[in-house]
């Protein structure tokens, strides 16, 4: 199985008050065919910006460097016209807010068939039939009627189903899902995760799943990359990350979660707060909150060290 996506040394800088600040630094990861990679982290860690850069949805003055190779082609070098034939066709995206990511003045059917007509060259009539089939496949009742309705007539869970139908319309090879269930109730979340798994399996779609919810990661992902303050701090197969976390941040995140079974003990929080873009600490960005920080951590950031097969961690504790 080859890699469908390879991100190498991605750097993203934002301009704020005439100065550039690095939001994403030296991020590298890859996704294999049919694989689901979870990108986890807290607010401001750069996980959403990373996904937007893959779709080339970031505009100047934001600066991007590095490589984003999709099937060997660097997306950052493609002319906009070629990028357009990939976006929504081979790579598509689901956003967190099903309320704001659908166009309120267009009918559901128009929004789904748009990409079918654009990318798959279907006639209006064929596209409508395919749209109804898609709505049915994402579990929408009465698809023949819903196709002519407007987004406000649907519930949050139904709108997210429509988003999935739009994203899957052209059978993409890569689906980027940015917090796809965060705005939903848990019983609806269970339905949507189930649906995403089903459609991905049927179409052999790879998924880049961006989330802050470690429960969702454990359930959906094959591999996980943990981000903190713009860098990947640990990456590996999902079982190893949960069973044998190596970075103090990953360990801290897992230890701070309240549990649904077992005895109730006092929570072990990570002290302090996530640093802001304008006040990034020197050296390892987690050092000020790390209980095991050493002098070297405050001076220079660590490189990646291999823990086990395909499990790597960016931490001085693992340097020989």
């Amino acid at each position, binding site marked *: 199985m080859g890699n469908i996506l390879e991100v190498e040394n991605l750097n993203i800088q934002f301009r704020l008050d005439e100065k550039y600040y690095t939001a994403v630094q030296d991020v590298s990861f890859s996704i294999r065919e049919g694989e689901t990679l979870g990108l986890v982290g807290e607010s401001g860690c750069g996980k959403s910006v990373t996904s937007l850069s893959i779709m080339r949805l970031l505009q100047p003055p934001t600066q991007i460097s590095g490589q984003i190779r999709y099937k060997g082609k660097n997306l950052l070098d493609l002319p906009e016209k070629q990028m357009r034939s990939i976006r929504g066709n081979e790579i598509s995206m689901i956003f967190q807010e099903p309320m704001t990511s659908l166009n309120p003045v267009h009918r559901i059917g128009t929004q789904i068939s748009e990409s079918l007509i654009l990318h798959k060259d279907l006639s209006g009539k064929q596209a409508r039939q395919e749209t109804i089939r898609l709505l049915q496949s994402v579990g929408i009742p009465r698809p023949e009627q819903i196709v002519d309705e407007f987004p406000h007539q649907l*519930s949050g869970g139904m709108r997210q189903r429509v988003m999935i139908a739009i994203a899957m319309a052209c059978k993409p090879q890569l689906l980027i899902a940015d917090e796809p269930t965060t705005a939903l*109730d*848990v019983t609806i979340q*269970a339905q949507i995760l189930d649906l995403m798994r089903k459609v991905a399996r049927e179409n052999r779609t790879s998924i880049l799943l961006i989330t802050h919810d470690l429960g969702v990661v454990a359930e959906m992902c094959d591999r996980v990359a943990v981000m903190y303050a713009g860098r990947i701090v640990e990456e590996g197969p*999902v079982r190893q990350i949960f069973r044998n976390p190596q970075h103090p941040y990953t360990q801290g995140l897992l230890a701070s*979660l*309240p549990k*649904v079974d077992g005895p*109730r003990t006092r929570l072990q929080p990570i002290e302090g707060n*996530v640093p802001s873009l304008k006040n990034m600490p020197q050296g390892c960005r987690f050092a000020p909150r790390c209980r095991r920080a050493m002098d070297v951590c405050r001076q220079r950031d660590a490189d990646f060290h291999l823990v086990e097969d395909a499990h790597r961690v960016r931490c001085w504790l693992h340097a020989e």
Partner: protein
Amino acid sequence: MAEALLQVEDLKKYFPIRRGVFQRTVGHVRAVDGISFTVQKGETLGVVGESGCGKSTMGRSILRLIEPTSGVVNFEGRNIVRLRKGQMQAMRRQMQLVFQDPYASLNPRFSIAQTLMEPMIIHNLYGSREERLDRVRRLLERVGLDADYARRYPHEFSGGQRQRIGIARALAVDPKLIILDEPVAALDVSVQSQVLNLLEDLQEELGLTYIFIAHDLSVVRHISDRILVLYLGRMMELVEAEELFADPLHPYTQALLSAVPVPDPDAKRERIILQGDLPSPANPPSGCPFHTRCPVAKPVCRERAPQWKEIKPKHYVACHAYA
């Protein structure tokens, strides 16, 4: 401990739906539809449910921030629903609310000192400005912030710090009961546990009683003594926290618990995936409100609402399966 601080009996809040030129009432949204429970002194009652289940409306109706349609709310034996405006105002010193959104619930033009002193001024506590400022400094330290932050403004703080300020504001008037409405939902995972620990410490030191409203089941299990499960404004189940997770009796509770993603890739669980969406509280199903999505619904569930019954000791359920 076995002393009731708050008793809620058959609390209802119906919001009228008005239509047309004359704004005629054409129906009601039954946000809270007959809720009864007791909270003991020093206890934490968790309230869970999905959007539209009425959990927030319930919290606000208990404090009369919105007027309940009917029902009784006894606070230390006094029915506060009957109190006149002035009496109620004085009563609010005993019962405070902490909101979900730490960004929207602090006035951006007030310094932290002004924010924390306002409730003291309203309730005429502490004679002079100096005494109040002193109290503000002690409150900030109590919630784990630097006393010098009193001079700063909300925009200078992170979400977790703002939530600490919101808690300090609730504590400013020495309340007995604090209703916490999704107090950690907007916070990052690593900060959420800091705030939960703070709430536990404060409860122990000050003997506070909490009603903790949340949708995150693992958080509610962690902090609550007992948990009340709501669905479309009605009570489904009420029991001690660990028992609810070990032996959920109501089909809705079972489905809700099975839907929670567990941070363990090896967890093998049978998931009950509920079909369909939450019905609208403006037009709730007849009988048991859950029957439209219930995997074990019987004909009787459509006809009559089930009774609230003690199925096991101190384990209450409203379900025809146990009739």
